[in-house]
């Protein structure tokens, strides 16, 4: 009797979770189907499953032959650059914070923790003004006036702003603390220098946490559409998610709309983070779980 009850419970669980999972995945399915329509075919729209009579791949081929290609490449370059520099920063600063004693360490630690709770809204607009007023670039004079600074400069794609990435320093620092310093001390005794110790002793042992940082930074950067959206004007110089953001914003503005094109671009833009997630799931989940559980 008890066992039968358990089986029924399990069946209900499977059913409910199955339906729920399909609901969660449905929007992606819709987007994929809609992307295979032509603009005219999709104009009726009144279908939850807009499967076209003859699937058209024109929307996709356009992306790879022209308009979406540059933004796509830009996105990859941006993600690569961010991942590398944030990892380097997290490793170096995190290591020093965990291992070395020096005056003012508490202040630095306070900055790392404190900035995590300051809302980003406080710096959104001032940062924009500051970027426009960087001296001596983009036509600015030495006082930062007269030009547009780095607004609309491709450099803005590669300039980390704010403090969000200090979280990864904290994560590496915590991970370093759970590791005994004995290995490094032994290496140092043998005359290993700082960087050699880092790369030959510390990094191999800390690879999992570095992977967590790298994967999460890559995902976050891929999805950061806001920075390019705000700072880059020419869409061809921007990133794919920002480009899509502009097209999406225009859906509710004056003028005609091309939904299938937006969906085709979206489908392409989802693929890289989806692949990262599929193959590196455990690092992502470890990243958010450790952020939450360890605090």
């Amino acid at each position, binding site marked *: 009797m008890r066992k039968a009850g358990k089986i029924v419970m399990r069946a209900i669980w499977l059913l409910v979770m199955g339906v729920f999972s399909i609901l969660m995945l449905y929007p992606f399915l819709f987007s994929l189907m809609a992307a295979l329509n032509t603009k005219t075919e999709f104009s009726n729209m009144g279908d939850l499953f807009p499967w076209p009579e003859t699937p058209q791949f024109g929307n996709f*081929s356009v992306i790879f032959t022209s*308009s979406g290609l*540059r933004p796509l490449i830009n996105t990859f*370059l941006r993600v690569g650059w961010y991942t590398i520099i944030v990892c380097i920063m997290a490793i170096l600063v995190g290591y020093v914070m965990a291992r070395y004693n020096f005056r003012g360490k508490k202040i630095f630690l306070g900055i790392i923790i404190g900035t995590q709770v300051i809302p980003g809204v406080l710096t959104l607009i001032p940062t924009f003004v500051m970027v426009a007023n960087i001296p001596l670039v983009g036509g600015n004079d030495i006082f930062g006036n007269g030009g*547009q600074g780095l607004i609309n*400069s491709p450099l803005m794609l590669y300039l980390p702003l704010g403090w969000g990435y200090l979280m990864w320093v904290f994560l590496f620092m915590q991970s370093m603390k759970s590791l005994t310093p004995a290995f490094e001390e032994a290496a140092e005794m043998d005359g290993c*220098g700082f960087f050699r110790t880092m790369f030959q002793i510390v990094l191999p042992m800390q690879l999992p946490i570095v992977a967590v940082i790298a994967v999460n930074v890559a995902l976050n950067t891929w999805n950061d559409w806001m920075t390019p959206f705000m700072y880059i004007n*020419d869409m*061809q110089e921007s990133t794919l998610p920002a480009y899509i953001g502009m097209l999406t914003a225009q859906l509710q*503005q004056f003028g005609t709309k091309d939904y299938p094109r937006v969906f085709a671009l979206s489908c392409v833009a989802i693929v890289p983070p989806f692949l990262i997630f599929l193959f590196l799931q455990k690092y992502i989940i470890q990243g958010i779980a450790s952020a939450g559980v360890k605090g």
Partner: protein
Amino acid sequence: MKKRLLAVLLAGMMALSVTACGGGSDGGSGNDGGSSSSAKIVIPFIGYTEDQIKAAEQTAEENGTELGAEAQYHIKLMEAVEEQYPDYDVDWQDWGWAEALDQKQRATLTAGSPLDLVAGETFMPTYANEGILEPLPDDIASLVTPSYLIYDTEGNPVAVSLKSSVFMLFYNKDLMEKAGLDPETPPTTWDEFKEMSDQITEAGNGEFWGGGIPSFPHAGGALRATPFFRQLGTDFGVDGKINLNDSKVQETLQFIRDMNKNFPEGLGNNASEDPLWNAFQKDQTIAFAINGAWQQTGCDQNNMNWGVAPLPTKDGTEGNCLVGSNFVGVPKASKHKEEAFNIIRVALQEDLQKIWLTESTSSGLNSILDNPDLYSDNPTLTTANEALKSGTFSGVAVFPKNDAQVWEVINQKVLARTTMTEDPIDEICSQATQEIEALLK
């Protein structure tokens, strides 16, 4: 040992930063901001970069359709500029359109290092009012009809439209016939418009509708409402002040509200305009549509039995508004003014401008307007060009401060609210006036 590792690391980082930046800036970025001496001219050309033309060509080829007039025009324009000014290095860019374009252009304008040519529709008068545009040379200004020019506060023409249209009333003859109306006599007055539309809606009984005046919660709504205000001699804004408490404005709003009952719910004030145009041209369930000349293409493509007439008027007084314009102007701060004007000259060449006629879009060139042979076989163009010749029209009203925000309030909280709710119109207007006055202060 230590130093060597450090050096390798540093070199690696530098190499990375170089490739990263190189990857982002290849192909010419356009942020030289004018400080450089190169003659690179940066132009946001309304969604037609070389890449996008390639994309448009490919789509046209796949769908077996012809390239639209817009794409054709820009291809020709690029070719002509390259041919006539081979030493110009023009960077055609895609900065989006409407609000997105305004936002991005304004960022560079307020920063003092704008593009060499700014473009746009509803917000160009604002640029003109702020005095940031260079007056057009006389030879350019004299090429086109005055409606196609935007003047600054001193009365100098500062921007010219490469194409434009006025609003007209397109109607579905089949639906009129179904409702027992004569398909050859479209409405000419507000009362007729309302009567006929009501009759069609009644006859349709939920199958088809008469149609009214759209009140989209963005510039698309304001543009279509403006002609009706102007017929009564009023407008949203008069002398830079908000004019919503004018009884004539409220009378027009009441008319818009009454007419909206002849739309299926949610169609006339939807954020996306497409459902309305689809209902008119594709499903053919709406009898009247107020639109610019490009509507003809949609009607023809869908084999519609259609007609076109001037907008119905209140007491026979004309009033209209330019729409579908592509205004261009040269900022005073531009470093390549003469080059930019030369490009405008090319864009206004007659052979290029004739491309617009294929899509029933009016060209502002006097030489085309004064030559009815070029368009007399086209009823839409004839109607539009008659209107253009008979009077001077402008785009929507302009406010001296926070223009974009003021229009946002008008579009969303006046127009859309008028048709979405049953709130008293004087209450809607007084609330919006209060909000707008705070913005204008």
